[in-house]
């Protein structure tokens, strides 16, 4: 096919338009406000495994760094702290060096936040959205621990790094030696578990190890302590990631500092902490739950294709 032509068929582009309008209808009915936040901003995420695109703003003799957002999360939390109430956004997000059959460096996220919800409430609403737009069956829910026990007969909390590597070896996985237990657990999840998840009905995987909390609240009273985070899987594909949001500014600041330390250890560029977000949390982020869904992947699943470029007007190589 010629390079000037779209990557997606016209029917997939029509499908996108239809899904976008159904999503908006879904949130309008629930009085969730649609918002727009900047795509270019002066701060970006400190995550060890997310690389931002960076550009320069010229202001006379001065130059300032701006980053393409990797998700609208920080800006939306600042709106929540300002008293916006429930909000949703459909926006472009960008992640450097992430290209593959299910990754386009520029992609579309549907992200929404619900003050007063915890992660269970938000999973219920996500389930309704999936059923309404994609006609899926009611979702199944399993904890991170259960899914490892059911599919691999391993306990993710009690197994040692050596036991997990031994398991990978027994499965002839041929993977690099990983010193970090979370990295190895994630690899076992992507290689051995994910392909089996969410085939008959969507699967909500929830309660992650606290070391994989990201921006989720941690429940210290459960045994073991868990991060109140969930992921959604449909037909073996990770579709969404949600949190009962961390609202404590001090803990948030500490997690950012930990990210910075890890980036430094791995020789990656240091990213300044977004103090505007910290200030918003200090002002008071209402207790809330939020989730981001990869819209292109969802379209790919609805359209029953295997490659994300088949639902993008012009995928990375043709953009």
């Amino acid at each position, binding site marked *: 096919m010629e390079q000037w032509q779209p990557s997606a068929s016209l029917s997939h582009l029509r499908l996108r338009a239809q899904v976008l309008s159904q999503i908006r209808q879904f949130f309008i009915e629930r009085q969730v406000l649609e918002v727009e936040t900047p795509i270019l901003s002066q701060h970006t995420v400190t995550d*060890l*495994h997310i690389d931002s695109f960076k550009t320069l703003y010229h202001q006379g003799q001065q130059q300032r760094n701006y980053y393409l957002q990797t998700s609208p999360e920080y800006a939306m939390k600042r709106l929540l702290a300002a008293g916006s109430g429930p909000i949703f956004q459909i926006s472009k997000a960008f992640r450097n*060096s992430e290209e*593959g059959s299910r990754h386009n460096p520029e992609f579309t996220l549907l992200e929404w936040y619900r003050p007063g919800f915890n992660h269970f409430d938000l999973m219920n609403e996500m389930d309704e959205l999936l059923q309404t737009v994609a006609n899926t069956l009611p979702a199944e829910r399993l904890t991170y621990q259960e899914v490892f026990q059911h599919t691999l007969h391993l306990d993710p909390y009690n197994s040692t790094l050596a036991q997990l590597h031994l398991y990978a070896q027994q499965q002839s996985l*041929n993977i690099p030696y990983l010193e970090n237990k979370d990295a190895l657990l*994630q690899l076992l999840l992507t290689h051995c578990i994910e392909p089996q998840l969410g085939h008959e009905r969507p699967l909500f995987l929830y309660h992650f190890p606290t070391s994989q909390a990201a921006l989720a609240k941690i429940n210290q009273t459960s045994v073991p302590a868990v991060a109140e985070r969930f992921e959604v899987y449909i037909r073996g594909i990770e579709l969404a990631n949600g949190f009962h949001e961390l609202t404590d500014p001090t803990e948030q600041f500490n997690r950012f500092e930990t990210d910075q330390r890890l980036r430094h250890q791995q020789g990656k560029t240091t990213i300044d902490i977004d103090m505007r977000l910290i200030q918003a949390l200090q002002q008071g982020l209402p207790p809330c739950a939020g989730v981001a869904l990869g819209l292109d992947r969802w379209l790919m699943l609805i359209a029953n294709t295997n490659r994300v470029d088949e639902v993008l007007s012009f995928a990375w190589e043709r953009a």
Partner: protein
Amino acid sequence: MTTYNTNEFRAGLKITIDGDPYAIVENEFVKPGKGQAFNRVKLRNLKNSRILERTFKSGESLPEADIIEVEMQYLYNDGEFWHFMVPHTFEQHAINKIAIGEAKKWLKEQDVCAVTLWNNEPLTVDPPNFVVLKIVETDPGVRGDTAAGGSKAAKLETGAVVRVPLFLNEGDCIKVDTRTGEYLSRAKG
């Protein structure tokens, strides 16, 4: 030495792993939303054609495999090696049974083949796509049966056995597609 980063991985790229040359068959970028990125790669060992699956941390680099394809003329077989020559340099290469592989059953002296070299060592031989060879052994031809319907085995001068139409006889020459091993047409010898 040239190295390739996992970001540059694509089907067909040739890299060295543990001292052996490999061609990438499939490359899948795997990255959990909140985790480390990996490349899950399916590779073919170019020495023995075995398929290997391996996961690399994204960002890792691997050395290129020094692989070139050279046109060479087949000279003769001494019972152990198949001898080839690069026409314009007269440089000769002795190719062993493993590297010659299936190509041997199509080779007639003077034929020009594509020989794949790894660090100047022959890895594989691709015969010409089409060859004209003489039938040396087959059941007698059925006269008048030139239409479709029925075929028989015929042994060719190079040792290959192909299915041919019933009307052909020993001594006839035929054109064969070496990629499929199928008879194409009758040919002049």
